Structure formats: C-alpha cells, structure tokens
C-alpha cells in the first residue's frame, strides 16, 4: 500500500469516527497500537510494560480526534501524543524516588561468563547510554535509529527545523561515541 493510499484510508477512518462509527476507532487502535507501544518502550528506557502509556495515548486520541484537522498523517499525530505522554511520564518518574527493582531492570545485573551474557551486558550498556542522554538527544536518536524515521518526519513530530534535528543527532552521536567508543571499535 502506498503512502498516499494509506493517508487517504486513515482520513476515511477519521471521517467515519467523526460521523459516529465506533468501529473506525477500533481499526485505528488495531493499526497503530504496536508501533506506539514500541516507541513508548524505547522512549521510556525499555521498561517493557507500556500498557498504560499506550492507553493514555489512545484516550487522548479519542478525545481529540474530532478536532484533528488532518494537517499531518494520523501516525505522526499519534506519535506526537506518545512523545508528550512519555515526556510527562519520565518527568513524573524523575520526581519519584528510584526503586532498586527499576535500577536492576535497567542495569541487567546478571553477569554470566558466557558469550550471550556478555552480549546482553553490552546491550544493556548501550541502552543505559541512550537513557542517560538528555531528552532532546534521546528522542532524535530513538526516532532516527530505532523507529527509522526520516529527518523531515522527526522535524514534524518535534516541531523543530531540520538543522536543529541534525545538530541534535550529531551531538547525540558524539556523546554515544564517548560512552560506547570501545564497543564501536570492537564492532568495526
């Protein structure tokens, strides 16, 4: 399905929802929930359980869909909501005292001697490095390298200019290189 056909189909779904067809919203949820869950999981530092965030995104979408003007595609609009929800969730989490369980989940404490364990430890280190990036760098890194979005889409999502996104990406890469330089050399 081409992008244009996809957009027109989404527009039709929004129109149906506006006319009171509840099945249209079911279709929207079905189509975007997995992608929104993956994005939320990455933005929140891979906690795994993102059920609440995804539900919050769809609750906000349900409330605001009648006012959706169609200036961007539905996916972008939902991603924007998801980014905002993740920001507020991270902010609230920052206000909460950090639990030991959360730290262990992030760090991946199991230090086995085998190859799989070493890989897992390295992956956890990479994820920690991404998590410790400032919000504006972390978001562009996730959207660019993990969600695979183009710069133009990222600009639309974050409401910034292209060169601002590129600057953020450069700085984020620089920081990641500083932290993960040995791993990158190893890979190369």
């Amino acid at each position, binding site marked *: 399905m081409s992008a244009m056909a996809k957009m027109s189909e989404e527009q039709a779904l929004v129109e149906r929802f506006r006319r009171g067809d*509840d*099945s249209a*919203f*079911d279709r929207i*949820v079905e189509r975007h*929930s*997995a992608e929104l*869950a*993956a994005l*939320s*999981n*990455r933005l929140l530092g*891979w*906690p*795994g*359980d*993102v*059920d609440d965030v*995804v*539900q919050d995104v*769809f*609750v906000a979408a*349900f*409330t605001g869909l009648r006012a959706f003007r169609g200036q961007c595609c539905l996916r972008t609009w939902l991603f924007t909501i998801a980014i905002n929800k993740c920001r507020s969730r991270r902010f609230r989490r920052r206000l909460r005292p950090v639990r030991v369980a959360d730290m262990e989940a992030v760090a991946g404490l199991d230090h086995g001697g085998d190859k799989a364990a070493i*890989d*897992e430890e*390295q*992956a*956890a280190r*990479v*994820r920690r490095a*991404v998590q410790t990036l400032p919000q504006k760098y972390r978001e562009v*890194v996730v959207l660019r*390298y*993990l969600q695979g979005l183009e710069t133009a889409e990222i600009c639309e999502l974050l409401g910034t200019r292209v060169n601002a996104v590129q600057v953020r990406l450069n700085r984020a*890469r620089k920081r*990641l*290189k500083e932290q*993960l*330089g040995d*791993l*990158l*050399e190893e*890979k*190369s």
Partner: protein
Amino acid sequence: MSEEQIRKLLQDADATARGPVFGPIAAGRIRQRIHRRRVVRSAALTGAAAIVVIAAALWITCMRPQKTQPEQQRIVSLEAQVRQLQVQTNATLKLVQEILERDRQERHLASLEAELSSIPEPMMEIERQVDKTAFILVYQADKLYKELNQTESAVAAYKEVIQLFPKSRWADVAKERLSQIEERQINKSDTEGEPTCEPGTV
C-alpha cells in the same frame, strides 16, 4: 565509527531488550476509561463544589454570630443608654417642673407677703379708724355747738363719743367740751355768756 555502526549497535541493543508488553487494546476499553475519567472528574467537581458550599456555609455560620454579636451588643448597649437617658431626662424634667412650681409658689408667696405687708396692722387701723370716727364726731359736735348753735345736739354728740370711744383721747376732748358747755351754761345763767369751741385744738 560511522553513523551506520551506531545504528547497528543501537538496533542490536533494542533487539535484545524486553519488547513492549501491552494488553489487547480495544476501543471499548478506551471508551470505558474515558467514561470512568469523566465520572471521576464530575465526581471530583461535585465534591469540590460540595466542599466549597459546606465551607461557605460553615464560614457564614461561624462568621455571622461573630459579626452580628458585637452589633447586637452595641444595639443593646445603645438601647440601655437611650433608656438611661430617658430616665435622666424624665428626672430632670420632673426636677425642673418642681423647681418651677416652687419658684411660682415662692413668687406667689412673695406677692402675698407683699400684699400682706401693704395691708396695715388691723388693730392699728381699727384704732386709727376709731380715732378718726371719734374726731369726726367731736368735730361735728363742735360745728353744731359753735356754728349752728345747737347745744343739745352737740352735747348729745359729745356724750355719744364718750360712750362709744371711752378710751380714745377724743372722749377726753368730748368730756372737756361738755365741762366747758356746762361752765358756760352756768356762767350764762349767771352772766348770759356764749360758749366757745376751738377746733384748732383738736
């Protein structure tokens, strides 16, 4: 260390991480959640409104006596002051009336006393009147005797003065005239002389 290496490293880390866990999301659940949220919001609003109303009612209940009590106390004290002033005014008026009455009585008494003082002593007046009457009788008797030459009437008048006013000096004068008349009658019978009377001696 190219961008691709970083992308590969990140994607590997992402692939080994825990995948997103979320339950089957249905629009029905979303609607239920929105409905629940609306109910909670309206309940919260209702609760807040109820709390505000209760707080306002409590505030009014607590503040009203505090606000009105001093006013009532002030009104009561003012009423007491007014009553006290009325009593004082009544007492003052009564006192003024008494003073005026006393003054009026005193003035009346003074006028009576003045009137009384203007009235001469009754006994003295009587004596004066008696004296005057006696003089008039003697004077008339003298006139009768000297000018009209009515000796009998004059003698009768002198006798009357002596009888009516025995203690007055005119009784003595009348006695003296009578004795003179007797002397003259005696002398007349002897010498045919005329009796004389001197009113200037009266």
